[in-house]
């Protein structure tokens, strides 16, 4: 009522203000991104890792066009060393082109690393924020149930869940997601509890904000940063776990190409043709390391205080 009376503007003024607001908002967004990138770019390893992951993603997405051969067809001698039969990386123990299999296998490896982490993060953020902000018996119920999952080692839990379902990529994603939720939820809850005590939350309450507004505009943005950092570093780890599950036979099934199964297949001919396992294993290590570096860079990029004008 009274506040609105303070502003009595003509339509021209209003139009001018509206365009200024749009410009201002665009400016805020642009500057936020700029500052974030500036902070991120200071970490050279993180920039390198980001470029590397970008290249790997493009290569694997376009695998059908890039791959020189069908990944599941024998085109060369069994266990052929790199260069033989015109195969750049050689062949595996079935004589299939290793390069093509690496490219195709990267799709599943990246998918089984990224998808469960993203899914688990979404679920965990919801559970953790609710538990941490509301507290009381809701907190107790959510966290005690998650503690039950916590009692089992992550990999073991994933194996149990995957083993009780039909093996396949979706089983792989589902089992890792379930096993991962408690780890992220616990971090989200801790962060939420500390954010909840910040004076700006009390200031918002005094200003008349309702709980949903506070959660969406104050708690969530300030909780998300450490969670995104943590989850990014987990992507690499989950790739390793997914490869491990495939290695054990509860994940992707042969002959489908996947870095995990490739390591497992190559094991049989490790002495004769070590490259069959080595290339896939090397990719798993490098890519998961790259995700860890990206996580490190995001830590600085997402902290508004670390950004210097």
């Amino acid at each position: 009522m009274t506040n609105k009376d303070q502003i009595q503007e003509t339509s021209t003024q209003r139009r001018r203000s509206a365009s200024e607001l749009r410009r201002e908002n665009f400016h805020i967004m642009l500057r936020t991104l700029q500052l974030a990138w500036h902070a991120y770019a200071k970490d050279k390893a993180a920039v390198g890792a980001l470029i590397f992951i970008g290249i790997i993603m493009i290569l694997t997405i376009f695998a059908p066009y890039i791959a020189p051969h069908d990944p599941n067809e024998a085109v060369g001698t069994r266990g052929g060393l790199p260069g033989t039969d015109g195969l750049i990386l050689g062949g595996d123990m079935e004589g299939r082109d290793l390069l093509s299999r690496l490219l195709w296998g990267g799709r599943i490896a990246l998918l089984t690393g990224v998808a469960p982490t993203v899914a688990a993060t979404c679920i965990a953020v919801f559970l953790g924020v609710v538990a941490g902000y509301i507290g009381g018996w809701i907190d107790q119920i959510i966290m005690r149930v998650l503690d039950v999952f916590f009692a089992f080692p992550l990999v073991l839990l994933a194996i149990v869940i995957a083993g009780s379902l039909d093996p396949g990529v979706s089983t792989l994603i589902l089992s890792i997601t379930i096993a991962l939720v408690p780890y992220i939820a616990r971090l989200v809850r801790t962060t939420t509890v500390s954010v909840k005590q910040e004076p700006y939350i009390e200031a918002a309450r005094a200003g008349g904000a309702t709980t949903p507004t506070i959660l969406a505009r104050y708690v969530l943005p300030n909780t998300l940063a450490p969670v995104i950092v943590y989850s990014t570093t987990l992507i690499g780890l989950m790739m390793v776990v997914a490869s491990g599950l495939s290695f054990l036979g509860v994940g992707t099934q042969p002959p489908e190409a996947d870095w995990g199964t490739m390591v497992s297949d190559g094991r049989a001919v490790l002495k004769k043709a070590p490259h069959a396992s080595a290339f896939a294993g090397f990719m798993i290590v490098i890519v998961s390391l790259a995700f860890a570096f990206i996580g490190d860079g995001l830590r600085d990029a997402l902290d508004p205080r670390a950004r210097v004008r």
Partner: protein
Amino acid sequence: MSDSLVKVRSLVKHFKLEPKGLFDAPPVLRAVDGIDFDVQRGETLGLVGESGCGKSTTARLVLRLIEPTSGSITLDGVDVLATSKKELMALRREMQIVFQDPLSSLNPRMSVGTSIAEPLRFHRIADKVERFDLARRYLEIVGLSKDYYDRLPHEFSGGQNQRVAIARALILQPKLLILDEPVSALDVSIRAQVLRLLIDVQAEFGLTYIFISHDLSVVKRVCNRTAVLYLGKIVEIAESERLYREPLHPYSQALIRAIPEANPDGPRADSLAGIEGDVPSPVNPPQGCRFHTRCPHRMPVCTEKEPPLMEAGDGHKVACFLHQEAADHSDGQ
């Protein structure tokens, strides 16, 4: 007394602490233990006392950010404690707060302009263009450039952030503004400017202030009346000028004597002249008068009975047995 904006009656807040053993009764922290005061329209009431005496708790109780154990609070005739959620929402427009630490009272990921406009958004006042214009206008009212709309709090100094926090509190045009140590976290050079701003906007918007501070020299400058708190109780309340000239309660006397003076020939400022020891724990306050453990004028009655807050003339109230039978007793000091 008909023109009181705020009336606080026997307000009590006890915090239950974690029990020591599994089957022990939880210890109770008596943060605010029965206080009464009125705030007149347009005046500035100071609340002073050492840390832990219940100043900030009182502020949060008045705003109903925390629920009191008992007592009553009315704002402009409306019972603050009996309101429904919807009514509380309307009531929140009438009273706002400025906190001590300006940086942490602003969302670090929100531009200061957006932060200022937030209360309008909460109350669904004005559309986003109008909110934008209002936020920029209030930036100018508190002495900042409207071009600062897109800045983040960490890009500002403490004084600038406190101006932003003041703008955010003012934008709803409240009647009552609670200032919880508004200048304590600021550099001395900035304090005067922010105090000047607070005095200016009080005149401009016809605001009523509750000014909380442990710094008595600041309170002396801005407050019409001052209440001295000790362990969750008001021990003395009077016109500031009168309180500073002739404090009656031994605790007030000690506090006021401890203000450093810029006069080398004047009395030396001691830490808390004539008072020994520390503030007792509010979990287990002393029997009788709460101040008797440290009082230089302790009498036998002080350890047995709690002195009520009694009129000592001209609205000057004091809770001390030294001043109970005012006329025939010679002053303790």
